[in-house]
């Protein structure tokens, strides 16, 4: 194997800048186009551009960034390149909470569910996601064993999914709503959602960066990581918290969007070999660009109808992974 003398250190920065440029381009395109056609803003009060399209594009990018970040963390935490940030059960928790909210809302008297109304579907989804992850950690009896966490996540996903199905069977009028949620929908992203996503994103990024070296060490194995004197337990709790927060916020605002969390770190790793400090940031930026692009495509492909963005991410993400499997050019997944 001929040695590579090129020092790739400047590359991550270059990729980050390229992704930021793509983000800016995407944001402008997303602000000007949509399912009702091309529209130049008529001023600062233009409803279509500033109240609908701009927050939607920003929200889509932020959601993708959160998912990409969570994906990079999950793959490092589980030492598995096929790990998905939803492995800990957050998506099924959110779906169950949302279905339950609709059932209670529909069944109960309006004043009884006043607090539910203030919390909203979004709040319910977020809480459901976090509770599901807590349940997974409880089932795994702590955060020590990756295998137990994965199994716990599978159990929680399956059981909560079954409960959701049961609810929709008993109250079929919520079935369409639940399905809409499961397909992912960026149409409801407002400036309020954007604020929430920014807050969660910054917090998650800071914590993930602090734990980046721990993720690096974990790639050598738990034993070696322990021997390097790192506070593994604390770091694991924090990282699981990061995954839960990111996926919870993303799912609450935009529903279930598959593949971004799984594919974004892979895309980054296929460009440059970086440690987790850069991997986390680049995955976030890549995830944002991917979802923004998918959102724009969802709006334009079948205008004036909009495709659910989750379908597009599955197609594109799945297609990309399939292509990589075929190529295997020096990159071992």
């Amino acid at each position, binding site marked *: 194997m001929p040695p590579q003398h090129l020092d790739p250190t400047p590359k991550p920065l270059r990729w980050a800048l390229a992704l930021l440029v793509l983000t800016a381009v995407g944001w402008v395109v997303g602000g000007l186009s949509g399912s009702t056609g091309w529209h130049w803003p008529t001023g600062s009060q233009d409803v279509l551009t500033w109240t609908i399209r701009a927050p939607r594009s920003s929200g889509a990018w932020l959601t993708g960034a959160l998912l990409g970040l969570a994906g990079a963390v999950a793959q490092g935490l589980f030492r598995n390149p096929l790990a998905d940030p939803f492995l800990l059960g957050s998506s099924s928790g959110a779906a169950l909470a949302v279905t339950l909210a609709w059932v209670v809302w529909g069944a109960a008297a309006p004043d009884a569910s006043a607090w539910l109304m203030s919390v909203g579907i979004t709040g319910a989804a977020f809480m459901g996601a976090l509770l599901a992850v807590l349940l997974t950690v409880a089932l795994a009896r702590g955060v020590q064993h990756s295998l137990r966490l994965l199994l716990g996540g599978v159990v929680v996903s399956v059981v909560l999914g079954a409960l959701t199905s049961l609810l929709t069977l008993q109250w079929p009028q919520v079935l369409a709503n639940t399905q809409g949620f499961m397909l992912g929908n960026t149409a409801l992203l407002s400036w309020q959602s954007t604020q929430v996503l920014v807050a969660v994103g910054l917090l998650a990024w800071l914590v993930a960066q602090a734990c980046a070296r721990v993720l690096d060490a974990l790639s050598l194995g738990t*034993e*070696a990581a322990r021997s390097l004197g790192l506070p593994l337990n604390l770091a694991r709790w924090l990282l699981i918290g990061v995954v839960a927060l990111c996926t919870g916020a993303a799912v609450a605002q935009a529903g279930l969007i598959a593949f971004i969390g799984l594919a974004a770190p892979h895309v980054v790793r296929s460009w440059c070999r970086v*440690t987790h400090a850069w991997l986390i940031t680049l995955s976030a930026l890549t995830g944002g660009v991917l979802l923004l692009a998918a959102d724009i495509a969802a709006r334009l492909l079948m205008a004036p109808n909009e495709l659910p963005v989750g379908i597009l991410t599955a197609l594109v993400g799945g297609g990309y992974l399939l292509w990589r499997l075929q190529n295997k050019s020096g*990159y071992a997944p």
Partner: protein
Amino acid sequence: MTAALNVKHLGVQWPDTDTPALHEVFATAAPAQWTAIIGPNGAGKSTLLRAVAGLLPLGAQLHGDIEWQGRPINTWSRQALARHVAWLGQGEQGAEEWRALDVVRLGRLPSQTWWPSASDPEDERIVEATMRQTDTWSLRHTPLGSMSGGERQRVRLARVMAVRAKVLLMDEPLANLDPPHQADWLQWIQALTGQGHTVISVLHELNIALRADHIWLVAQGRVLAQGRASDAPMRAAIEAAFDHRISLHPIQDQWVALPQASKHSNLQAD
């Protein structure tokens, strides 16, 4: 002079098993010396090394005393112990797509703060020095997955050496190394002990292990004997521990173990 490592009454029990993995182990390792741990398969050598490193899996029950530099192991903070004792595990997997340089840089973690800051030039100097020493500097941008087994092992050794710890614990460090690199390893060890470092290694390669300054003979969860290969009682104990399937012979001032067919073999050709 305080021993670098002192082990007394050490016992290790896995949950749900009757026989303990280690039982009433007594052993010492002197500072600035190389101690080799040898013994038949399943004797508990790796368990012993993990126990003294504080790296037993959670769930294992440990009793007895382990003292590093005269202080009990549980009085050492996690980071202080990590700076004092560097660990190279058996058959370390993972990090296939990482560049050698990044893997070796991980060795500097015990001496760094948590937040990933800009790289310290001192850390970079140490990393380069260890990589040059292990003949891996030219491979620094190569991912581990693209290397041969021997190259990977040398990168891992560089990682251990980059910790610059007083004590190095290594479990099967010669795996995948060809004889020239095994000879190199011996040289590195001798250089390290010459500089005052303590090395404790579990070795399958008896011929290399017999050159150690001090040997722990482990069988069936106990340390049967401690000493040098030059001591006749030690040699007798070694041969006995291996069921007399080996015999030790002096060749050119070194003791060498030669495999021996058993007198009571069932596989005799007729």
